[in-house]
């Protein structure tokens, strides 16, 4: 029995539409993207209902990793140069110009002052290895203690940029004494207001904050 031959359809698809979509998305991501700042350690922050967003500029970030190591960074590249100059003269570190530039371009610092010179003069790869084994910035509950190097960092950072906002980004599993050291140091400088970086979580229903948030919804 002769069966009717179906016309074979072409398997080719017009790619133009897909191409359009792909590039539309690409453009969106390119414009919307802001690269993740390089983080020395992974920190999982606890969650809170706070919805205040972190401002973009003038941030002093004190990171505490699960092992309790303290890392310090200032976001403004221009201020970083001033900061290292200040630290250099304050603590007599004898840093060369290249090492200062390395600091200005680098990220967080998690080394005591006696290791800072070695770290800054090392190559990029060595620096990465050193960060993995970093011991963190020594801190103490007393701001005047000689081993409280975090205090020197905070002092210099505030001197070079008085507008700086202090943020603490600590891992949820960090034990309280490690955070207490930072808080006490800040209190020593009469800083009683600072930010804790947290993740966002939903407001539990049936609470005062929940009612408050929804009262605003109804009004607007």
């Amino acid at each position, binding site marked *: 029995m002769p069966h009717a031959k179906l016309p074979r359809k072409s398997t*080719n*698809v*017009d*790619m*133009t539409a*897909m*191409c359009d979509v*792909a*590039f539309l*998305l*690409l453009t969106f*991501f*390119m414009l*919307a*993207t*802001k*690269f*993740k700042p390089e983080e020395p350690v992974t920190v999982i*922050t*606890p*969650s*809170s*209902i*706070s*919805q*205040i*967003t*972190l401002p973009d500029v003038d941030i002093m970030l004190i990171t*505490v990793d699960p092992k309790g190591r303290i890392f310090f960074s200032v976001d403004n590249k221009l201020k970083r140069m001033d900061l290292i100059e200040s630290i250099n003269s304050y603590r007599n570190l004898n840093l060369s110009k290249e090492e200062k530039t390395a600091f200005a371009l680098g990220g967080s610092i998690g080394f005591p002052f006696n290791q800072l010179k070695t770290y800054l003069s090392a190559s990029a790869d060595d620096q990465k290895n050193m960060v993995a084994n970093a011991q963190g910035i020594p801190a103490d509950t007393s701001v005047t203690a000689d081993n409280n190097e975090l205090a020197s960092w905070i002092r210099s950072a505030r001197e070079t940029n008085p507008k700086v906002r202090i943020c603490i*980004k*600590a*891992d*949820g*599993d*960090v*034990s*309280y*004494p*490690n*955070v*207490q050291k930072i*808080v006490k140091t*800040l*209190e020593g400088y009469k800083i*009683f*207001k*600072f*930010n*804790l*970086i*947290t*993740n*966002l979580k939903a*407001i*539990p229903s049936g*609470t*005062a*904050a*929940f009612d*408050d948030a929804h009262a605003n919804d109804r009004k607007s």
Partner: protein
Amino acid sequence: MAELDTSSSGGHKKGPGVKKGKKLSTRIDLTPMVDLGFLLITFFMYTTTMAKPKTMEINMPYKDKTLTEDEKNKIKNSVALTVLLSKSHRIYYYEGIGDNPDKSPDIKVTTFSSAKGIRDEIIDKKKRVDAMKRTGELSEKDETTVLIKPDTTSTYSDLVNILDEMNINDVKVYAIVDITDLEQGWIKATEEANGIK
């Protein structure tokens, strides 16, 4: 792939003497371009940070050694709730500020869980303070005050969680205070009484 042969599209044939100029297709294969497009999208999607980090602002109690005892704000025992944060995310709490070393307060234990946790206790405390305000036992200016005292075995997440509870339950006055030896003793005694190691 995506091209269409247009060279043989015309149905009408030209005369035998007419030379047919070969028409080249104007369609280009777009597949590699799409591939590239998606590759870049993937790259940008991975590297991008969409959500800006959120922060929680905290105000520590102002401490100045020059302040005299009279200038310091005294907290009334009846508005205060002291919360002690301890290990394994346990919370010990008691009414008042625990200023009487001879009389150990009634220490209760709870957790951060949403059912019968610290939140219920805070809400309850607020209700009690409001009731006392109505009866005139407390003046209108009095606010529920929570004293947060993390001990050395608590974690940072406990601290953030309890501060978050303050925001959730709209407690206007709260402070992070150092734990006293007395209170650490009370925690220890409570732990021993309950057989917690």
